[in-house]
């Protein structure tokens, strides 16, 4: 059958028409591509407008077009638009092809003649391709309404609650003994200075008691298989050595436990906990964990003090890790961030100079439930600092460490300044590169700090040292900084320095990304589907990201993302079933020789080898349509729908022939 | 018992006379192997020789004569076919003379059959219009 092809060339105002002679291209296409089956070629001001779309629809209906080519912008922008237009007119949307003559021609080519030639070559390529395109129908798979949320920080808590409240079941997995995340460690939250725990604990409590939430703390995801709507997730529930059905969380065990351990996680190394512990009093769940690595019984084989005193007999030293397999339809990753380790900047002296603190240490110091009961004192535990310097952008906006802005440090530093001022009345020096206070109430908070008399020095700290040069520097930490506003080097002697450390991607993000089939950017944050229009989805359907795992974020933004991810998931669950990639691979069983090269090369294990038939078989629902198998198959028995060899070769030949014909013209 | 052997023969396609092995598995022809050390072809073959086995058991191979009746080929007996050919050839010869008939023979026939065909052309039909596909 000869195809009837319609070619539509968009002016895009002057975006295309300003560089490409669209009328000439349209005339050329009608004449030169007639033998290919082009029956109509039109140019129009804005093809994506409703009038432009109606033009196509009308031609399909009236002229009986069997294929449509639109030469306009990037298919990433308007392919769905024109596919829908075709579908409305009764043409299978996969019989449409787009030619990108804006982003990849008019906008990047200076010479108008050359741009016009390139447009012709690109359109000839698209026409060559579209002839070989086949109608495709999408596959629908049912959605398992259960949801997995990974990470029990404020983002994960918010997401889990939103979904659970709507009546759907949620599995919330957290690797620490309690949910709460970093927010549970904070003292106050900017800019309103609410007590962090006061606003967080009610939500934690709701999670712990929600009938629709299965809380899996002290647990980690080990394996993820499947696809949107049908994931199978393997979770390792580590042994707590506590029988949860018996434990009442009374606390006798940790009172009686003789082993004290420095708490590197929750107390940021400032305080101690026992070998059997809950990280903090409001922990959810209330059950403690026996720290296998430090427990005297596990180390030496004797003690069992906790067991002796436990009133309900809940201590079980024999407990083993449990491997759970759950089925979910969607996954939300809310795995948060790691704090930048300031030891990597040796000139700041952290770890070497006692009174240099990280931001998290300061949070614990200032927290009424923390190791000092909220008193801001130096490491000696008694001296109240009289002067404090706060370093902004530690590890952020720095070519040597992380180039990005960690977004929260300015406000965090202002909060620290306020808390120090309020609690100690010390002189405070905030050394900053720029002050960034873009969200609601943030700028007002900055103004308040200015009014409080905090010193702001515009300059990045070069060095923090205890090497005194003058008597007044003696016994102090000296902050060497260039005040760029006055253009002078300054040496500021202080008692304490707080490093406002930046946020970093979790150290295991690469493995995490691999496990969930998503990607990390070069700096390690998880990548969203679209930075503006799809911020919580990922390129893998059914896997969503929220909060600081996607990039540095403060609490309001994290909560918003948690809720947003929940909304996206609920909208998918509401659909009941979901359309999956129609452009999947398919094996021609007649010609397949069963060599299994495709099986080995598939990144998704979507191809199975049928030993009985000796043939490969594509599991359509698992196939993402990358075509790696096609690139591998020697007899070309496997093909990728919508990207067949015929289609790609014809596209290439279409472009090559036009390029060659222009060359011949030039020579002649 | 599994029986696999190679039968040495000469390629039937042209006059070069390349040798080839017909691979026989359990009495059925399954393929061709070139004959290493053969003075003519020494282990080489052209595309025809390599496919010399293909027609033998090909599903499209004619096994009975077909005669076109009302625009369609229908199976016929050799008796029917040969009488039809004889009748038509005779008629053409009477009508337009023996040189209006040409005969092409094939290397797939035996030497004896080829000899008979040229005899048929010259003695029966009365023409020198005879040629052979292997006349390189």
């Amino acid at each position, binding site marked *: 059958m000869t195809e009837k092809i319609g070619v539509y060339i968009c002016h895009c105002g002057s975006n295309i028409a300003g560089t490409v002679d669209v009328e000439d291209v349209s005339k050329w296409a009608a004449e030169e591509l007639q033998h290919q089956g082009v029956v109509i070629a039109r140019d129009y001001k804005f093809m994506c407008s409703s009038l432009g779309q109606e033009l196509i629809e009308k031609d399909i209906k009236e002229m009986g077009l069997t294929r449509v080519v639109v030469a306009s912008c990037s298919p990433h922008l308007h392919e769905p638009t024109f596919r829908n237009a075709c579908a409305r007119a009764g043409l299978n949307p996969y019989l449409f092809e787009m030619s990108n003559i804006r982003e990849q021609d008019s906008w990047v080519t200076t010479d108008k003649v050359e741009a016009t030639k390139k447009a012709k070559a690109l359109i000839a390529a698209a026409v060559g391709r579209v002839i070989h395109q086949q109608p495709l129908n999408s596959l629908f798979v049912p959605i398992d309404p259960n949801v997995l949320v990974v990470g029990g920080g404020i983002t994960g808590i918010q997401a889990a609650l939103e979904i659970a409240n709507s009546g759907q079941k949620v599995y919330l997995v957290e690797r620490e003994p309690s949910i709460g995340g970093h927010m549970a460690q904070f003292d106050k939250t900017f800019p309103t200075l609410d007590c962090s725990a006061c606003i967080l604990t009610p939500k934690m409590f709701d999670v712990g008691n929600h009938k629709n939430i299965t809380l899996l703390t002290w647990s980690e995801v080990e394996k993820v298989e499947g696809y949107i709507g049908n994931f199978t997730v393997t979770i390792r529930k580590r042994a707590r050595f506590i029988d949860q059905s018996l434990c009442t969380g009374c606390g006798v065990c940790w009172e009686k436990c003789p082993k004290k351990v420095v708490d590197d996680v929750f107390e940021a190394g400032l305080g101690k906990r026992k070998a059997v512990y809950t990280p903090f009093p409001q922990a959810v769940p209330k059950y403690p964990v026996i720290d296998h690595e430090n427990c005297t019984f596990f180390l030496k084989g004797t003690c069992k003090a906790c067991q002796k005193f436990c009133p309900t007999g809940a201590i079980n030293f024999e407990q083993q890790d449990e491997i759970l397999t759950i089925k979910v339809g969607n996954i939300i990753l809310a795995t948060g961030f790691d704090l930048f380790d300031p030891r990597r900047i040796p000139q700041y002296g952290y770890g070497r100079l006692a009174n240099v603190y990280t931001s998290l240490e300061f949070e614990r110091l200032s927290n009424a439930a923390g190791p000092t009961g909220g008193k801001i004192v130096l490491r000696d535990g008694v001296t109240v600092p009289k002067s404090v310097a706060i370093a902004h952008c530690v590890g952020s906006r720095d070519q040597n460490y992380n180039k990005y802005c960690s977004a929260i440090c300015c406000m965090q530093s202002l909060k620290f300044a306020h808390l120090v001022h309020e609690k100690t009345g010390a002189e405070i020096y905030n050394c900053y590169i720029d002050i960034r206070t873009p969200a609601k109430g943030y700028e007002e908070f900055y103004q308040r700090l200015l009014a409080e008399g905090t010193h702001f020095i515009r300059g990045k700290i070069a060095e923090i040292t205890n090497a005194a040069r003058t008597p007044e520097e003696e016994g102090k930490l000296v902050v060497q900084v260039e005040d760029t506003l006055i253009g002078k080097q300054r040496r500021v002697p202080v008692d304490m320095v707080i490093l406002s450390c930046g946020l970093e991607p979790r150290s295991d993000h690469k493995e995490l990304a691999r496990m969930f089939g998503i990607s990390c950017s070069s700096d390690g944050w998880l990548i969203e589907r679209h930075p503006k229009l799809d911020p919580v989805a990922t390129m893998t359907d059914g896997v969503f990201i929220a909060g600081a795992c996607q990039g540095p974020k403060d609490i309001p933004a994290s909560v918003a993302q948690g809720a947003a991810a929940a909304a996206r998931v609920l909208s998918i669950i509401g659909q009941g079933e979901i359309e999956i990639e129609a452009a999947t691979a398919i094996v021609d069983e007649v010609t397949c020789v069963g*060599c299994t090269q495709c099986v080995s090369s598939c990144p998704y294990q979507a191809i199975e080898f049928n030993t009985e038939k000796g043939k490969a078989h594509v599991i359509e629902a698992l196939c993402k349509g990358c075509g790696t198998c096609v690139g591998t198959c020697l007899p070309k*028995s496997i093909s990728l729908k919508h990207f067949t060899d015929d289609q790609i070769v014809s596209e290439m030949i279409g472009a090559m022939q036009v390029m060659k014909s222009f060359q011949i013209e030039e020579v002649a | 018992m*599994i029986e696999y052997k190679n039968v040495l023969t000469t390629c039937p396609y042209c006059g070069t006379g390349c040798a080839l092995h017909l691979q026989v598995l359990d009495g059925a022809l399954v393929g061709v192997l070139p004959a290493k050390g053969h003075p003519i072809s020494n282990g080489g073959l052209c595309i025809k020789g390599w496919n010399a086995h293909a027609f033998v058991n090909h599903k499209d191979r004619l096994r009975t004569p077909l005669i076109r009746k009302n625009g369609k080929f229908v199976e016929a007996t050799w008796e029917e076919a040969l009488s039809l050919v004889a009748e038509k050839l005779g008629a053409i010869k009477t009508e337009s003379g023996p040189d209006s008939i040409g005969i092409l023979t094939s290397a797939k026939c035996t030497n004896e059959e080829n000899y008979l065909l040229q005899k048929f052309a010259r003695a029966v039909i009365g023409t020198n219009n005879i040629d052979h596909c292997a006349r390189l």
Partner: protein
Amino acid sequence: MTDRLSSLHETIKQVMPQVEGVLAIKRGPGGIAAPYLFSPERQEELDLLVLWPKEPVPDTLKIIQHAHTDSKLAIVCRGCEERGIVEMFKHYQLKWDNITLIGLQCTQEEAEFCRCAKPYTVHATTTVGEPIPGVPDPLTDKIAAMSLEEKRAFWKAEFEHCIKCYGCRNICPQCFCNICTLEDEKWVETGRLPMPSPSMYHMIRAMHMTAKCVACRECEETCPAGIPMAVQFRLIAHDVQEMFSYETGAKLDQKPPQLLVLEEGEYQRTGLPN
């Protein structure tokens, strides 16, 4: 030579009772030899057993095994043929467990004829003859040392002689596909001799031989135009070994590297940009 022959004769006799047939080379009419399945029922035929020429026996083995999937068969194989069997097993074309390998180690003379780097078997538990080390491949070395222009001229002249008999593909034990890319007009133009340059036929075949060519050189031997095509395969095999530590036909459980994800350090050896 006679020693090897009689010891092979003996070995086959010993293996015979455990199998339904032993695939080896048998002398035929006019001294022209061909592969043959010697069967326990007709042991007297072993008098016609010969060592040379080398024949594409892995392919013959496949033909027999496909018709008799569960039969135990033995095969007399040289190093290259053993590698061929290993690769065919890896690609699910042969059942390893049903095959008994009788390794036949090549002589210096035979190895030199094939310019063979590995004229010995490694998997066969029963072997005949003493293994010798590989011999140099002066032809490959000579071609590899040519300049780009010289290589182009050399191969152009070689490929111009190609009559597209498809013999190299037909005889190759690794070309086991049901249909062939080389017969698809999309990739290889039909009806033109000498074939246009660059030769799609030979380049595509060379790519398909990546991590597959076992250097048996049957293709070169059968080529009526005498094209030394295995030189290209050999150079590529060398690169694949350098880049991905892969030796064709060496290990039963090693998958062809181009199908798998990059391993540590491999990317650096590909010469691709960072």
